[in-house]
């Protein structure tokens, strides 16, 4: 009898869930292409290569991202800048830059490794292609143009939401610097890709004040 009453308890759970679902509440899934779900701020989507507000490329071709990538899917070749018309403020710039999106696990370690915030992630994740070649994103697809617009592989695709390419994953903002909670929301880094301006970094005194009372 204990068996049957336990069974009944279980049946009640599923039964009431069913009634709730039929009543139209408590759905945990959505009809995806028709109805997009809100993405959390730190959602890891497609990468983008950023520029400085003056139009210079941020990537200095150092290959640290390629070294950090656990999936080994970034290929970078640096090239000396021409002193007359430099592409990046550094000594070199990312001359070849490829990410194989089929291998990428969207861990964000490349973003963490990059010393110049050249590579960041956006909220776009609709990247299906019909051939493997298209899944390898090159400089052409990754790099934003001088006005801060990020290119989309298939801009005519009905699922292509170009706004998502302009939303940064927010990882940098949320964890820098040294993970001190008091800095949450303080704009230390550029919040969005593109040439947008951002608040100047707070001075050292301000930072000390902000971290007062914080053991970190």
């Amino acid at each position, binding site marked *: 009898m204990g068996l049957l009453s336990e*069974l009944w308890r*279980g*049946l009640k*759970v*599923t*039964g009431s*869930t*069913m009634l*709730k*679902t*039929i009543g139209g509440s*408590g*759905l*945990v*899934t959505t*009809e995806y292409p028709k109805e997009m779900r809100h993405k959390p701020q730190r959602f890891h989507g497609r990468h983008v290569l950023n520029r400085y507000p003056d139009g210079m490329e941020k990537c200095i071709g150092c290959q640290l991202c390629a070294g950090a990538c656990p999936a080994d899917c970034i290929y970078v070749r640096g090239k000396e800048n021409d002193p007359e018309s430099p592409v990046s403020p550094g000594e070199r710039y990312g001359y070849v830059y490829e990410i194989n999106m089929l291998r990428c696990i969207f861990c964000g370690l490349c973003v963490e490794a990059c010393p110049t915030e050249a590579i960041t992630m956006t909220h776009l994740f609709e990247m299906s292609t019909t051939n493997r070649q298209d899944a390898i994103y090159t400089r052409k697809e990754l790099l934003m143009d001088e006005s801060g617009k990020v290119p989309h592989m298939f801009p005519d695709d009905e699922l292509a939401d170009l706004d998502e390419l302009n939303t940064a994953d927010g990882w940098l903002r949320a964890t820098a610097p040294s993970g001190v909670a008091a800095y949450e929301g303080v704009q230390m880094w550029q919040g969005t890709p593109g040439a947008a301006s951002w608040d100047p970094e707070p001075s050292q005194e301000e930072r000390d004040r902000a971290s007062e009372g914080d053991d970190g």
Partner: protein
Amino acid sequence: MTWAEFWIIILRVVLTFGLLLVLTIVNVWLERKVVADMQSRIGPNRAGPYGILQTVADGLKLFFKESVTPRKVELGMYVLAPFLAVVPAFLIFMMVPWGAPFMIGDQEVALQGADLNVGLLFILAMSSMAVYAVVLAGWSSGSKYPLIGGVRATAQAISYEAAMGLAMVAVVMFSATQGDGGTLSLAEIVERQSGTWGDIIPAFEPVARFIPRWNIFPQIVAFLIFLIAIVAETNRAPFDLVEAEQELVGGFHTEYSGMRFAMFFLAEYVNIFSMSAIAATLFLGGWNGPTFEGSVPAIISGILPTVYFLLKTYAIVFLFFWIRATLPRLRYDQLMSLGWKRLIPGALGWLILSTFVIAFRQFGVPWG
């Protein structure tokens, strides 16, 4: 046999077969929808209104897929096994009366594939045949997971078939007291459940005349045992150790693909429906129910019995889905101990008890 009789037999078989196929297609969809609802999901909703054509789409897809034959299979058995699964599944339902007989001219058409006088025995035989399909599929695949699935199927079928048979015996024995001698014909068993208990137990007339004369009331324990046994017999969760995706990939059908896999799939759902139909027939009075003859048009009172039959059957089919969405799979030793230590002794005890009750009612108590 005259030509008229011949055509009526053809008509009966085609009608029954058609009903079964259509309802099976609906059932696959229904299960996915019900389980989705129970898991707060939407479920299939792309093909057709409410996704009801999903099964058709899946069937078409499987039809056009290659049937991969692995190198190590025992070819003959491997090809035969899916047919061994499907044919008994369809034959079982042929025994079930699914509506009141009607007249075409002067010929009576019973809505039943065939009315064997050993219907129940035939059902038991066919449901045991279906186990061969699983065992042979598992063995002939030449790979270890299907083999384990097949071996499990043997042991499971033996233990639960015993309980199922014993539960059936109790009903058949009871049903024998309700009419003129014992019968194994399903049409006859249904016939004997018509009316209400009012005519049988005059003492409780005022109450009893609202209770239909279904076998479930005197045979509730047999009904429960039968229900559990048919879930196990059709290899459904929580007794789906034969398939057990998490342990055995796909169990006995791991090596099957394309149309051959589709046949196993079809057989499973046909079995669910026919077993539920048999439970409804044996315990819930089959197609019996108030038809309001005379006060509604003849066509409605002709269709109502089929509606009652489907309602009762779907109540049990729904229970199948509900239990599947609720219970986790049993461990193998739990399956065995439930079968041998609880169901079979329970069924035997109930059988003995009802034998005594029936005997005392028939022949009087020895001390009286």
